[in-house]
Every structure is written in C-alpha cells, then in structure tokens.
C-alpha cells in the first residue's frame, strides 16, 4: 500500500490550497447572515477546475481519478471557509455531473458537461418530495409520454441550487404501479415552461447554498432530455447517491483539519490561571479527540475513493464514510466551540458557523439512520 502522493498530485493539491485561500474567503460572514450565494466564487472555482475534476477531458474536465478528486475537495474544504459554496459545488458534482457522465447520451454530454465543468452552468437534482424523503422511491411526481415530449407534474422540496440552477436532474415515475422500476430521470433546463422554482428556503446552516421548492405543472420536457433509460432512474439515483455519500464530506475533512489547527493555536495563545489553556488536560484531551476524528475520517474517505478508483463496489464503504464523517464533523465543531469558550459562540470567530454548517451533513444524502440501515443490511441484518 502506498500512502504517498505523486509529485503531480502534490502539485495539484498545493494549487487548490493556494487558489482557495486567496480567492474564496471574502464576505463569508455577511453572505451567511443574508443567505447569499457567491456566484463569482462559483465561477472562479469553475475556471480553476474544481467542478470539472471528475469530468473526462473530452468534455472539458480534468479527468481526475476519485482519490485525487476527494483529496482536492478536502484541500478545498481546508482552505475555503464558505461551506455553503462547497455544498453547492458538491450537489452539482454528484447529482448533476455524475449522472451525466455515466448515463448521458453523447449529445447530452456534449451539450452540458463543458458548461457544468467550467462554472458557466449550475446543476442540481430534484428528488425529495413533501411525502417522499428517506423513502425516496415512493415519489409522486409523474412523467407522461405525449408524442415527442414527457409531461411532468408534481412538486419537489429541498432542491439544492434550485434558485440558481440552469439544469436540474428531475426524478419522476412513468408508471406508479412499477414502483422503483417506473422511476426515470429527466434533464430539465431553467425556465422550461411549466417549471416553477418557488420560494427560496431559509436554513440553519450552509446558508450560502441556495435551496428551493420546485413545482412542475404540465412541464414539457423533450424526449431527448430523458437521462438514461425510461425506468432506469432508480439505478441512476442509487449510483449518484453512492458517489455522493463517499465524496460529499471530503471538504468536511478539510474543514475539520482547519478547526483542529484553529483550536491548537487558540489553546496555545489563550492563558488562564497563568498558563496556556492547552496545558489543561481537559482541553488537550478534546483537541486529541479532534485529531483522532480527522485522521479516521481521512482514512475512510481515501479508502472509499481508492476502492472506487479501482472499480470496486463501495455501497457499504460510502455509507460508512458518510455516517462517520458527519458524526465526527458535528462533534469536532461542538468541541471547537467549547475550547474557544464564549468567543467560540460569537459569529466573528467563525467557529459557530461551522457547527451550523455541519449539522445538515447528518441529514442530506440520506440521514445517519438511513446510512445505518444500509450498513446493517450489508452486514446481513
């Protein structure tokens, strides 16, 4: 086993770190307060090459392997403090780009992937519904074939990037009686007649990532925008979710590493009772816990990505990675606030925001409970 990066990987990771620390960390507190998406930073990330990391070079991407990709996203999460922006980028990569890369027709790939890679287009998906969350395949949105179009009807919630998306991968059933086998995926462009991106949703964290409800009322989608096969939506969704679970918290590992360093610095600087608070064992022990979590999370992240790069199934590993990192991220943030005391609770110290941003990770891409169900089923339970 080789734990060393190649020179090329190291060069790439350094470039990501330099880019992110210099170009993305402005107005983060204000944008979080107001819930503003930083479109300019999004475009910078696109030009720099983040969104296109996994996209094959013939469609304008970098064609990086999964391990290099998660390491780059980890470095991005370390150097960029805008977790919302990173969440939007992740949603875009795992729920719009990945299905296109795997299931898109040549024409669909040519049409959308270059723009999705360089930051001119924003993507997302629309899966969850008011009555279909964890029970994802019970969805009620319908797609009826009429001549050369599909007519979509239904409503979707928690659509990440919804308010700003140029392209949504929308899941609907062509035949409810077929259950999961009726579910199909459609590429729906912004401003399609009959698609209505309704109110922007206010959230506890990742506030700089916009989210909306989306309604479809006799929304006509040309048949060439069917993504994959009719009835192939459930498989496509599961694949995209597996990628997402394995990779979406790569940036969280970077964010935890940053928290660790912030805590060490603070514990060394802050003096109480005539000594640095880091000399108090109760404080030091918390920091050791953070360190252990960062290391275990990083190992799981890399291992899952390595397996994926070697074309092994990661259904189990991705669920474990997602479950473990989300748990650890929230705990690290709580500890970081505790170490900073009252200052940690203050917005300007930028520690409390991380906690608000972290909590959602136990909900999106399948709740922690769903991840446990997956793991249990894979253990034969």
């Amino acid at each position, binding site marked *: 086993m080789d734990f060393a990066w190649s020179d090329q990987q190291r*060069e790439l990771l350094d*470039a*990501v770190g330099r*880019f992110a620390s210099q*170009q993305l960390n402005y107005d983060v507190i204000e944008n979080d307060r107001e819930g503003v998406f930083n479109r300019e930073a999004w475009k910078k990330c696109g030009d*720099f090459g983040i969104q296109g*990391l996994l996209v094959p070079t013939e469609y304008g991407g*970098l064609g990086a392997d999964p391990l290099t990709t998660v390491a780059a996203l980890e470095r991005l999460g370390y150097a960029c403090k805008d977790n919302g922006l990173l969440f939007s980028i992740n949603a875009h990569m795992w729920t719009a780009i990945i299905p296109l890369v795997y299931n898109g027709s040549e024409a669909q790939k040519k049409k959308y992937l270059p723009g999705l890679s360089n930051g001119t287009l924003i993507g997302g998906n629309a899966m969850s519904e008011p009555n279909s969350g964890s029970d994802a395949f019970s969805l009620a949105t319908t797609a009826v074939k009429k001549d050369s179009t599909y007519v979509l009807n239904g409503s979707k919630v928690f659509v990440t990037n919804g308010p700003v998306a140029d392209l949504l991968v929308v899941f609907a059933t062509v035949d409810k009686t077929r259950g999961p086998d009726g579910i199909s995926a459609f590429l729906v462009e912004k401003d399609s007649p009959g698609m209505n991106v309704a109110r922007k949703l206010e959230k506890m964290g990742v506030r700089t990532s916009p989210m909306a409800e989306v309604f479809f009322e006799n929304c006509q989608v040309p048949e060439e925008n069917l993504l994959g096969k009719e009835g192939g939506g459930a498989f496509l969704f599961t694949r995209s979710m597996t990628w997402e679970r394995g990779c979406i918290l790569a940036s969280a590992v970077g964010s935890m590493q940053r928290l660790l360093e912030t805590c060490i610095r603070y514990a060394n600087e802050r003096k109480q009772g005539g000594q640095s608070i880091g000399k108090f064992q109760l404080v030091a022990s918390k920091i050791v816990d953070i360190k252990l979590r960062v290391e275990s999370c990083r190992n799981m992240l890399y291992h899952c990505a390595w397996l994926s790069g070697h074309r092994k199934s990661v259904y189990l590993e991705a669920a474990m990675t997602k479950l473990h990192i989300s748990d650890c991220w929230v705990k690290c943030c709580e500890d970081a606030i505790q170490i900073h005391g009252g200052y940690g609770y203050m917005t300007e110290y930028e520690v409390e925001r991380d906690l608000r941003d972290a909590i959602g990770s136990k909900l999106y891409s399948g709740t922690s409970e769903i991840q446990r169900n997956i793991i249990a089923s894979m253990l034969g339970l």
Partner: protein
Amino acid sequence: MKILVPFKSVPDPNDATVVGAAASTPKSVINPFDEIAIEEALRIRERGEAAEIVGITIGAPTVDEQIRAALAMGIDRAIRIDDSRALDPYAVARILRVLIEKEAPHVVIMGKQAVDDDSNQVGQMLAGLLRWPQATFVSKIEFLGNKTRARCTRETDAGLEVIEIKLPAIITTDLRLNEPRYVSLPGLMKARRKSIEVLTCDQLGVTVRPLTTVLSTARPPKRAAGTRVESVEELVTKLRQDAKVL
C-alpha cells in the same frame, strides 16, 4: 514579438517558517515581482502584441516546481540554467545576458527585485551589459510605433514618471503593474506537456564567480520590553540618555 521573462524561485513570503528554524524547509514560490512580470507578458500576448513568452530561471532541479507554475500560468516554454550555487546579481546578469543574446527577444520583463535578498540590481546590470535601454519600477507598459518603442510609467519617490524607450529593452516591474492570475488545474495539466530546456553555464560558455559572499544570516534582535514613563520630562530624559535620539 518575443518576450523573455527571467524569474527567481524564493522562499514563500506568506509562509510562517522562520529563518533558521530547525527541520523546516520553507516552501518556494516564484518571486512575486517576477510573477507580475509573467502576468504582464501573458496580457501582452493576449492583446495580440506578442507571439511567444519564454521563461528563464537559474537553479537546481528543485526549482522545476516554480517553472511548472510559470508554464501553468501560460508561458510557452522555459529554460533552466542548472546551477545550484548562491549567485549574486552580477553573476545572474552575466548568465542572462548570454541567454538573451541567444534568444534575441524584443523585450525582457522581470521583477524589480527578488523578495529574498532585495538586491534590485539584476535588471539594471543586464541593461548595462547588453547596452539596452531600461525602464525600472514600471506600473504601466504600452507599445508604440509598430512595437519599436515602449511607453512606460515608472513609480518614483517624486511621483509617476512616464518615459519612452526603444526596443529591445529591459523593463522591471513594480507592484501595481497588475495582479497575477492564479494557476488553474487545466493550466497545470497543460504545463506537463510543455518542455523545460536545461542548460549549464558551460554549455553557454559563461564562467561566473560570485563577487559577494553571504557571511551570515540572522534573525532581527528581539524587541526589548518597553517602559512606562510618568511625565513628559522623564520621557525627554530617557530619549536623551537611553535612546540617544535627541
């Protein structure tokens, strides 16, 4: 038009590593003023006024990382003079002179100084050795007369000075000339396909010997703790007797 950009690899000024600290090698970067020179060359090429940008640096293979960064920013090709000695400005200028005579660029753009030794001499010495015109501390460059002349704005203590020089010439860059672009991942990928030519002083037929030697490098002395004074009289006395500034 062909532009030649000499650049130097220096310890990262944004790296917190302390001079002389044990067991830590500071990360290296392209000298920030040279990065501005590279950026300017790229902008001139993007305006359609230049066809080729050649980067030159002197150093051991370890500086290849900075060369790749320059290639990733967009320069067309790079030459490294393989020499790991600590060279002084005159030695550097003499090596560059030979390469410039070989490459015959229309203009040489380089940083006004390197942030490690702050010598601020190579550009001027090079112009002297080549007997070329020079514009130093430049914050704006325009090409005139079908690219036979350059109008340069110089940042001087007295204000902005505008001069015109005939090409070929040496131009050294100041901080406000531009803001360098960042290296993108597609740029890095492309850079891997560009070539780095490695030459030695022997191959160039130039023998250089440093004329100056660095005797020692030391950290600045630690600032002593201040004292609180009770009155203006006491302050004046202390300034006279202890600080000896009055």
